[in-house]
């Protein structure tokens, strides 16, 4: 087992601390005992030394008192001192020598080295050792002599002499109140050494003299007797060679060995420099020796020598041994404890790690896990369970389960905790709905069982798995299956290799193939042969690259019928982008396509004459105008109206009239040539476009020929009919820029002029006159001024339900109350603002005032929603929806249903995605959209299908002539069919007569507006009109 690094470091640290403390304690104990032992030893040595010194002192005292201080001696001394001649003094000195020689001789054999008498002036008077020396001044190098002579008190001191050092005992001598001087008895260290050894034979004593004490005093001739001590370079050993008989005994071999070991080591140096007693130790031949350094001080208290006592120190060795043994055992014990602690820590960490691991497991479980105790209280809950329960740990632990949770099941009831505890239910497993304390419900899968410990039930343990998502998934799958089965569109699901996996009923209805007939087969079985191989290659290429394909395919049913299929194929991929399936949504759009084609044909061609209609003419005119502009040529627009054609219809009927019109169309094409563009505008109106390469006259000649041919009789059903034509011509390019509409209007106007001029002629449009007319249109600045001056007015045209007679709303139409020119229609000024910001401002003005008016009407209990025309520029604004919302908010009494926005097809085509979003967003405000002038623009069925407009407003051009023009009627029928197909409401504009209304109702058009119902009126006139309408409304529900 290993423990974490931190724990190991702590254990090691603690061990080191314990080891340090143990070592310190044992060392301190050792040193303490050692100190006591050393103290004792030092005391022993000191005692021996002092005893030796004192004994000699005592002996010398006795000698001086008993021998020297005898009268005869003192008299002899005095005689010598007071002698007036040297011979006299010499005799006295000699006599003194003779008198004391016997005692000296006796003492000198027993340690005493010297007896010396000192004169009062400090000179040597008599020496017994080296008696030939005398008269030298002792005061300079013998402090003891000086002190005695000065103090007249005895002094004992260790001092160097002329040859050797020794212990000096100096006593003052007085005779008859006269200070005679002093006497000195010197004992060599040898005597002290010997005595100390006798007192303490366990020690070997040696003397180390301080160099600074010896060298100034000793005769240089005797320097050879001194050797430098190996203990300290400043200390000398006296006569180790025993040149002199009473020199100290030299160190033994063992002592020499000890000294070599201690050879000037720092501790020794330091000890000897302290001048204090110190104990050193050395190991010789496996034995511990102690070396006690006892300082010898001079009279000034300065260390002048050391007495070193060498002795075997078994006790110190024992102490040292005990220290190391105890340290060893203590360390061993600590190591054992360390190992134990280590194992305990390792076990604990293992347990903790295991517990953490178990916690990690329970914490990592996606399932919720909780345990209850015998009282049904939560004793354990993992994070997943807390998440499922929507609670925090402190809210759960210790709380009874039944206070926090409530179970709902469709089958077995989840047993109460006690049941689980009692083991009444060994294992419960099932689905349940958990009612959390916060009210949220959760579908879970529960597994619960009693919790056993040591054979006894201690609680229960429950595992929860959130199956909400699974439930939802199941619901979605069911829904998907339902959708799959009941969808109106065919659904085909294939594998990536295009083998069919599944098809729904709609697919079968469309193709005639049942699931069993197509399972595992390739959809290519539906191929009709109308598409080449490249078509399918491109389709699959896009499928593979983009993951989808949308388009129309000509397929063949099981019965062999070829049909047009609208297909949307989508690749279903996994997370790695691999295609798992292809899902195709298919629908039979053959009829729709036909309808569309028909409609498109009808939208662009006159069904009677098969000539292009107004819409196609306009498109072609725009194109030709661009060509003319590019090529620098000229074109001529002709507006042809048959003269007196109404009589033909009235007399011979519409069928005859139609046939005549057909013939006329052919004749016109024949006359003008196949390259000429001829269109039937409706009724008896035709238009043509001539591109001029030559002079105008050439074209005019053609027009003349046209008039002539037109005037020739027609034979219909065996009857001759004769008509003529009035032709209006406009020429392009002009001095000012004009568009296609303007050219048409110019030609139209010219045609009327031709009519008024007598018919059967042509008239060329007078541009100058037109400029004058156009001058009547105001500039933008004036219009801005009009907006600011509130010169605009809104007129309202009611919209009615032809079935019920109800007024369903009004359309707001702008007028300009020109201060000079009176009320002007929008045609006079709206085009000037086209794509100008003023256009949007005016649009805002219209919306604001229209809603304001609606709010006013509501106050008068008139509840009518208002329709407002929205220009493309305004619709395309990014914040259009917010603007509408703001306008609605300005009128608290209004909501979205009070507003309908009318937009042209063309205004949607600009940014169709933005338009779609705007419309959808407005619909969320409950604001509805109507597609205005429907049929006059071009939009694909796909756009129409996707365009979320609520209402389609059929252009008045189709309605106005529907009674007379079967084509317009057909178009109207087509539009109605389309509106029904896409489930849009339809309102017809331009209802001018009751008959129009009646026919519209037959076609299924319920809503209508037009002059026949009501002309646009001021707001204040509406209430009266409503009243009158309600009296006799148009109602076609019978």
């Amino acid at each position, binding site marked *: 087992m290993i423990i974490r690094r931190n724990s190991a470091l702590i254990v090691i640290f603690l061990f080191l601390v314990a080891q340090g403390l143990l070592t310190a304690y044992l060392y301190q104990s050792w040193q303490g005992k050692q100190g006591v032992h050393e103290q004792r030893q030092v005391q022993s040595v000191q005692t021996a030394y002092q005893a030796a010194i004192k004994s000699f002192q005592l002996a010398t005292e006795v000698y001086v008192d008993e021998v020297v201080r005898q009268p005869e001696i003192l008299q002899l001394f005095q005689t010598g001192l007071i002698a007036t001649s040297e011979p006299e003094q010499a005799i006295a000195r000699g006599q003194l020598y003779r008198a004391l020689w016997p005692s000296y001789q006796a003492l000198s054999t027993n340690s005493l080295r010297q007896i010396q008498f000192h004169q009062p002036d400090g000179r040597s008077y008599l020496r017994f050792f080296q008696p030939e020396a005398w008269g030298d001044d002792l005061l300079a190098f013998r402090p003891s002599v000086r002190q005695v002579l000065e103090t007249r008190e005895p002094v004992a001191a260790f001092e160097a002499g002329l040859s050797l050092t020794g212990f000096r005992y100096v006593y003052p001598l007085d005779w008859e109140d006269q200070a005679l001087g002093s006497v000195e008895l010197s004992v060599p260290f040898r005597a002290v050494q010997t005595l100390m050894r006798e007192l303490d034979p366990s020690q070997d004593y040696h003397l180390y003299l301080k160099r600074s004490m010896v060298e100034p005093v000793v005769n240089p001739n005797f320097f050879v007797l001194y050797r430098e001590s190996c203990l300290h370079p400043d200390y000398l050993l006296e006569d180790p060679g025993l040149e002199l*008989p009473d020199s100290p005994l030299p160190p033994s071999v063992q002592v020499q060995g000890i000294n070599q070991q201690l050879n000037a080591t720092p501790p020794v140096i330091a000890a000897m420099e302290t001048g204090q007693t110190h104990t050193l130790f050395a190991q010789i031949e496996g034995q511990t020796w102690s070396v006690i350094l006892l300082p010898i001080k001079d009279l000034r208290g300065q260390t002048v020598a050391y007495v070193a006592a060498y002795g075997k120190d078994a006790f110190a060795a024992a102490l040292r041994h005990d220290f190391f043994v105890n340290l060893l055992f203590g360390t061993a014990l600590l190591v054992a404890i360390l190992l134990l602690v280590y194992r305990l820590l390792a076990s604990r960490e293992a347990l903790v790690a295991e517990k953490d691991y178990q916690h990690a497991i329970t914490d990592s479980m996606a399932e919720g896990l909780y345990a209850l105790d015998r009282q049904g209280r939560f004793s354990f809950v993992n994070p997943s369970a807390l998440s499922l329960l929507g609670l925090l740990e402190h809210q759960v632990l210790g709380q009874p389960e039944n206070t926090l949770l409530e179970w709902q099941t469709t089958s077995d009831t989840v047993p109460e905790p006690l049941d689980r505890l009692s083991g009444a239910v060994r294992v419960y497993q099932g689905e349940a709905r958990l009612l959390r304390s916060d009210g949220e419900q959760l579908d879970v899968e529960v597994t619960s069982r009693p919790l056993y410990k040591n054979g006894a039930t201690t609680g229960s343990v429950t595992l929860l798995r959130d199956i909400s998502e699974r439930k939802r998934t199941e619901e979605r799958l069911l829904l998907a299956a339902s959708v799959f089965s009941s969808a109106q569109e065919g659904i085909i699901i294939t594998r990536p290799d295009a083998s069919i996996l599944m098809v729904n009923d709609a697919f079968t209805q469309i193709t005639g193939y049942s699931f069993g007939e197509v399972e595992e087969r390739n959809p290519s079985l539906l191929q009709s042969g109308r598409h080449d191989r490249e078509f399918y290659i491109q389709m699959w290429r896009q499928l593979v690259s983009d993951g989808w394909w949308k388009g129309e395919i000509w397929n063949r049913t099981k019965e062999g019928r070829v049909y047009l299929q609208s297909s949307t194929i989508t690749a279903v991929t996994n997370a790695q982008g691999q295609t798992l399936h292809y899902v195709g949504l298919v629908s039979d759009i053959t009829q729709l396509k036909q309808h569309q084609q028909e409609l498109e044909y009808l939208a662009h061609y006159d069904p009677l004459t098969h000539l292009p209609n107004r819409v196609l003419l306009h498109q072609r005119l725009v194109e030709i105008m661009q060509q003319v502009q590019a090529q620098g040529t000229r074109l001529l627009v002709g507006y042809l109206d048959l003269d007196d054609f109404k009589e033909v219809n009235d007399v011979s009927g519409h069928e005859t009239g139609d046939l005549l019109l057909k013939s006329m169309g052919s004749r016109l094409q024949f006359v003008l040539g196949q390259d000429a563009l001829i269109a039937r505008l409706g009724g008896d109106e035709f238009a043509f476009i001539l591109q001029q390469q030559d002079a105008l006259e050439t074209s005019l000649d053609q027009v003349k020929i046209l008039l002539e041919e037109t005037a020739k009789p027609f034979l219909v059903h065996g009857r001759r009919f004769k008509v003529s034509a009035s032709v209006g011509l406009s020429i392009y390019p002009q001095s000012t820029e004009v568009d296609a509409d303007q050219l048409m209007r110019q030609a139209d106007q010219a045609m009327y002029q031709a009519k008024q001029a007598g018919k059967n002629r042509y008239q060329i449009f007078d541009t100058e006159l037109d400029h004058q007319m156009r001058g009547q249109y105001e500039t933008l600045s004036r219009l801005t001024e009009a907006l600011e001056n509130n010169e605009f007015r809104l007129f309202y045209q009611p919209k009615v339900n032809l079935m019920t007679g109800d007024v369903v709303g009004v359309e707001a139409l702008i007028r300009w109350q020109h201060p000079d020119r009176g009320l002007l229609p929008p045609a006079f000024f709206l085009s000037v603002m086209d794509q100008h910001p003023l256009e949007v401002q005016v649009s805002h003005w219209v919306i604001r005032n229209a809603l304001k008016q609606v709010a006013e009407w509501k106050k008068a209990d008139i509840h009518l929603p208002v329709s407002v025309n929205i220009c493309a520029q305004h619709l395309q604004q990014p914040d259009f929806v917010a603007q509408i919302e703001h306008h609605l908010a300005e009128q608290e009494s209004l909501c979205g249903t009070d507003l309908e926005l009318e937009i042209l097809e063309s205004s949607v085509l600009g940014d169709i995605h933005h338009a779609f979003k705007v419309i959808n967003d407005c619909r969320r405000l409950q604001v509805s959209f109507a597609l205005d002038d429907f049929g006059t623009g071009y939009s694909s069925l796909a756009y129409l299908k996707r365009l979320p407009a609520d209402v389609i407003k059929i252009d008045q051009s189709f309605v106005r002539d529907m009674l007379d023009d079967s084509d317009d009627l057909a178009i109207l029928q087509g539009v109605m069919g389309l509106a029904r197909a896409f489930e849009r409401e339809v309102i017809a504009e331009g209802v001018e007569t009751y008959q129009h209304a009646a026919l519209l109702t037959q076609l299924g058009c319920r809503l209508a507006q037009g002059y026949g119902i009501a002309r646009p009126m001021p707001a204040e006139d509406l209430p009266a009109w409503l009243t009158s309408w309600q009296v006799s409304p148009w109602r076609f529900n019978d």
Partner: protein
Amino acid sequence: MIKRTLSLLLLFGLFSAEMVLSATYRFAPLPMQDPERVVREIQPMLQYLTDQTGLSFQIVYTESYQDLIDRFQAGEVDLTYLGPLPYVELSSRYPHVDPLVVFREPDGEALYTCALVTFAGAPIAQGAWSQQTFALTQPLSTCGFLATSHLLERLGVSLGEMEYCYVNRHDEVALSVIRGDFSVGGLKTQIARNYVHLGLEVVEQTDYFPGFALVANTTTLSVEHQRLIQETLLAVQPIDQPEQAAIVAGWGPSLRYGTAIVMDENYAPVRALRSETPIPMECQQP
């Protein structure tokens, strides 16, 4: 071959020189002197010789002149410091001796005298000499029986008939007389003067004898080294060259005044006296 021989010779020569230069010779001081005096007085001179010649010297103490002579003969002593009578005695027994130099006296002479001393505090009457006791140095000491008997003859006393004893050292002679152990002593006059302050009085003194000489054992001390030692000591003449006083300042009183050449012929008077005076070897006491 020649190269090898020369190399060997050179090596031998170097080795020999090393051996020679590093030779340690045994020096025996006066038998009578105490070791402290020897160390104090003799050792400095020996150290000077060592410093100048590279030779080492080891002091060998002897108990008596006889002991010295015996050890000289045995080749256990290479150099010694002898008075004239010991030299005469030694040379008569052991011919392989050669006096290298003789040490001068304080007056610069290479001669010395022996003295007859008494304690001034206990003078001896004229006719009382025959009742006195005599302290002598050693039998073979010049100032011992030989000189003392010669001096007593002047006083009409025959030492052979007196009570005398050999106390070995000159200092001891002086001190024994001062102490009263003996009434009269015979010693070197120079040494006697060291004790005048203790009341020692010189009564008579002899004529001059050759001074103490540094005597070489020619069998153990090479001629080369003899010459080296001789030349070294002869070069020290502090009386003539005061600047050399520092060299000899630490030498003993009997050594510090310089040296002189001495030859065996200079000892003829001592030989003559010796031939006339039988020297007893033992004390004569009642």
